[in-house]
């Protein structure tokens, strides 16, 4: 690929994010209220109908779930408040531009491509969630003798995926703003639907008063029995999962995009609204619905369990919850992948990505193993957030320069690229070593983060030392490229 093509590719990517290039100015900062609402709205989605039941099927006990989620979500809130928010408030930039400064434009191209594919898969999972609700009336068409409903054949799932996926793709092509506004408006209603479905379902499990709850929780809901084909979750898995399922947003710095508008870093604590409504109340509620479905011999898919809990309102909630997130996710996937598709218009990229989403949605495993999918997403994107943190917090303190790729005018920072590839390969190797145990990757997050941090720091130190040595040998060259090998600055980016 020629230099001309390279610059065109980078220019196009930059143009996509041009609007966010400058740090947020003082007059655009927001107060507490909007962050409470934003976090509460963003963490209640269709996938909550899947994750709650997963804890039931992974054989968790009531203590594992109720205490584990309490601790795991607390750790997630701390991560937003002490890791992501202070960096966002300090730089006032998006994760994209911060990454570009430290890793160079080519690293952001690679990041965008990977992120686009991950978002495409996640949009497929959201679509599948919606499909389980839309499939409900069709299941009556496939009923057998003495049975009201029957399982749909695979071709029928494909038909539903194409129908529903096409609508979602059209919405994404037309622009997701309207959908995003509708998403915000439906969030409080969705929380209520989760709660009422669970409360109204408890009597079906033999819980008729608050005093019965603990007994029923242990004997009927989180019984500790593992469903066939699923690995066993302990309280450590629950804590780890609750903490890491949004790892790309907090440790991975994805929410710099939101928190850069915060007046104070303490607004990172507003994430507790999303965590304890979406990832506690909703997960516990959907676990209760799942247990009731198992008790009655009903499929544990989101659609059937929501219908069992709240009738048509529940089924509608699953559709809304899936669409709300699928459409913006697809839009963002299209945006991220647009860079890799020369001269393609936005609508064409989004349509192709929509086709990918439909293909993924046809796979039942996509929601059966959603926990593994979410973990993989976290593991792939985590190192990049670690680099941002280290670049801003640690490097200036140990006498190294921050944002070195920008200062040196590099197309790519080899320490960042090397550490990203190595840290990801480390996790893959550990996963293979554990015989592809599907519940093991949860425990890889922290080791991978440490590997990424250590390796990046060492490689950056080596890079800047070598550049310093080169500058000492040829000072003329240094003068011609200011910033690359000048006196080591201890200033961070402010």
């Amino acid at each position: 690929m020629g230099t001309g093509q390279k610059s065109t590719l980078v220019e196009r990517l930059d143009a996509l994010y041009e609007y966010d290039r400058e740090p947020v100015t003082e007059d655009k900062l927001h107060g507490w209220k909007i962050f409470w609402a934003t976090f509460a709205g963003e963490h209640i989605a269709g996938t909550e109908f899947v994750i709650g039941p997963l804890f039931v099927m992974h054989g968790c006990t009531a203590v594992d779930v109720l205490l584990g989620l309490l601790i795991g979500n607390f750790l997630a809130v701390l991560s937003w408040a002490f890791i992501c928010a202070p960096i966002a408030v300090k730089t006032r930039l998006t994760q994209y531009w911060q990454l570009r400064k430290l890793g160079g434009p080519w690293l952001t191209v690679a990041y965008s491509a990977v992120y686009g594919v991950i978002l495409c898969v996640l949009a497929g999972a959201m679509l599948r969630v919606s499909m389980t609700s839309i499939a409900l009336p069709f299941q009556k068409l496939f009923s057998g003798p003495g049975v009201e409903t029957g399982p749909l054949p695979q071709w029928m799932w494909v038909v539903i995926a194409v129908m529903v996926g096409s609508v979602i793709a059209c919405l994404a092509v037309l622009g997701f703003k309207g959908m995003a506004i509708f998403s915000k408006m439906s969030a409080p209603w969705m929380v209520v639907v989760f709660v009422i479905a669970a409360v109204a379902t408890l009597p079906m499990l033999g819980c008729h008063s608050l005093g019965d709850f603990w007994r029923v929780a242990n004997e009927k809901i989180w019984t500790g029995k593992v469903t066939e084909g699923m690995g066993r979750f302990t309280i450590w898995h629950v804590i780890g999962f609750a903490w890491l399922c949004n790892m790309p947003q907090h440790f991975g710095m994805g929410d710099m995009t939101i928190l850069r508008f915060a007046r104070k870093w303490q607004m990172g604590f507003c994430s507790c609204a999303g965590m304890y409504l979406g990832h506690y109340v909703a997960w516990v509620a959907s676990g209760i619905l799942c247990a009731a479905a198992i008790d009655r011999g009903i499929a544990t898919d989101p659609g059937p369990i929501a219908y069992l809990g709240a009738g048509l309102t529940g089924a509608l909630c699953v559709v809304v919850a899936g669409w709300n997130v699928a459409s913006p996710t697809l839009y963002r996937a299209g945006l991220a992948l647009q860079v890799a598709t020369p001269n393609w218009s936005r609508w064409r990229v989004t349509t192709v990505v929509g086709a990918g989403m439909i293909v993924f949605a046809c796979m039942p495993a996509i929601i059966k193993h959603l926990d593994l999918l979410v973990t993989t997403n976290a593991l792939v994107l985590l190192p990049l957030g670690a680099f941002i943190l280290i670049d801003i917090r640690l490097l200036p303190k140990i006498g190294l320069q921050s944002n070195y790729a920008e200062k040196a005018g590099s197309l790519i920072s080899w320490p960042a690229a090397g550490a990203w590839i190595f840290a990801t390969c480390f996790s893959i190797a550990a996963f293979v070593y554990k015989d592809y145990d599907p519940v093991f990757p949860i425990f890889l997050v922290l080791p991978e983060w440490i590997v990424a941090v250590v390796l990046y720091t060492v490689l950056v130190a080596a890079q800047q030392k070598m550049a310093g040595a080169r500058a000492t040998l040829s000072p003329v060259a240094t003068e011609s490229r200011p910033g690359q090998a000048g006196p080591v600055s201890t200033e961070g980016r402010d």
Partner: protein
Amino acid sequence: MKSVLKTISFGSLALMLAAAVLVFAGRMERTSYFIVSLIGTAGWFASVPFWMKRGLHQSE
């Protein structure tokens, strides 16, 4: 006007919650609860677009 719309919105959600609590207490049939939930849903979505502000992403 805005406060009336807000009252309708949150009243609708409260209605849904009350119906579920009544089912839990054994004082309402599930069929009635399903209908009340649908009415609450309609009340929420009919009133909320007129008062809820746009979010962070949309306002920027």
